[in-house]
């Protein structure tokens, strides 16, 4: 359990949905969210969102950094980064600044990436 916590960040997350749990409806949290169960609905977090290896989510995910190690049928909107791990499967569109798709991951959809502009360039422009 301790090793699983390290990977998923369970101990620090605001909201944790365990692997045997089913959720129907929209999950909203101000902090980090970890989902390792079955979910039908959207997830919106002020912090990071992690879908564990056992997660099956049908819905959209909106957060800061999003990490998918399970299955997601829905769109991702991540203000910072999105990672799909080797066990992750995403069928949906991704809007993010940094995208990381590991070898073995499955991604069916389109990605829209926001380019981050270095501070020096913004200064020069102004």
């Amino acid at each position, binding site marked *: *359990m301790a090793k699983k*916590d390290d990977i998923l960040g*369970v101990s620090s*997350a*605001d*909201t*944790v*949905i*365990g*692997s*045997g*749990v*089913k*959720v*129907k*409806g*929209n*999950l*909203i*949290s101000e902090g980090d969210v970890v989902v390792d*169960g079955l979910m039908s*609905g959207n997830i919106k977090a002020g912090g990071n969102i992690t879908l564990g290896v056992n997660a099956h989510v049908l819905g959209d995910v909106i957060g800061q950094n999003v990490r998918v190690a399970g299955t997601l049928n829905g769109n991702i909107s991540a203000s910072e980064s999105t990672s799909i791990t080797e066990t992750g499967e995403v069928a949906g569109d991704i809007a993010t600044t940094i995208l990381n798709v590991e070898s073995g991951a499955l991604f069916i959809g389109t990605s829209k990436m926001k380019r981050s502009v270095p501070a020096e360039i913004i200064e020069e422009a102004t």
Partner: protein
Amino acid sequence: MYYYILNPSAGRGRVNSIQDKLRDRLDALGIGGEFAKTTGPGDATKMAESAIAKGFNTIVAVGGDGTLNEVINGVTRDKVAVGVIPIGQTNRLAYHLGIGDWQQACEVLAARRLVGYNLIAAGQNYFLSELSLGFETGLEEQSNDQESNTLRQKASVLRSNWKQAKDFQPLVCRMRVDERYELEAPLFNLTIANQKFENPLLDNKLVITITEKPSKTGLVSYVLGKSTGAEASTRIKATRVSIDVSPQVGVMIDSKIAGSTPVTVKLTDRQIRFITEKQTNGVQA
């Protein structure tokens, strides 16, 4: 003006052996007041209500979690402060308020550091600290019927607890959370607490944790009282949850059995000011 409500049966009658020393210490600290002894369940609630009607602005529960919970249910005005002198068998509430023993409690009462906590309602009952249900409530209901004074009795209780734990079939818990989503989970234990009670710097919010049945090793530690048995598999925050469990189970509030499922638990606007040891941005009064 301080009003002390003593439960003479708390802590197996411990108050009787310390009450003279207690009164002397309180007088020396300048917070002596009126003392009253309860005679049965529900008395502390009525005494708190009556003391407030008479004009007392500080009600102190001298007992365990049960006594303090009864006092909480009797405090109807938000200008009244509540304190505790822990001498019961279970003193989790006092522990969470940073109070370890009766001597420290007296110093804390004199320092009068106040923190406001929103009460949690479960049906008709209000509570401050914790609601729990599941395997633990089954054990608690049984332990009330079992004597465990001799070594043989203690061993018998342990054997019975171990058998129950081993044979325990997970319950099915269904919850409606903040009218936003529904959740279904296998359940060994469920607890609901106010996160502010754990950390006074946080906002008032319900934290609901669900644990699944631990492994055999975890069960052994759990039955021996050496651990909580398992890490929470699910943790959510909310202001209102409606809980149904099948089969039906008893519900424990502040360490005392108080009803059964289904139950709706919600964070209320009703705030009570507690005299606490914890460092906060609370107001001295």
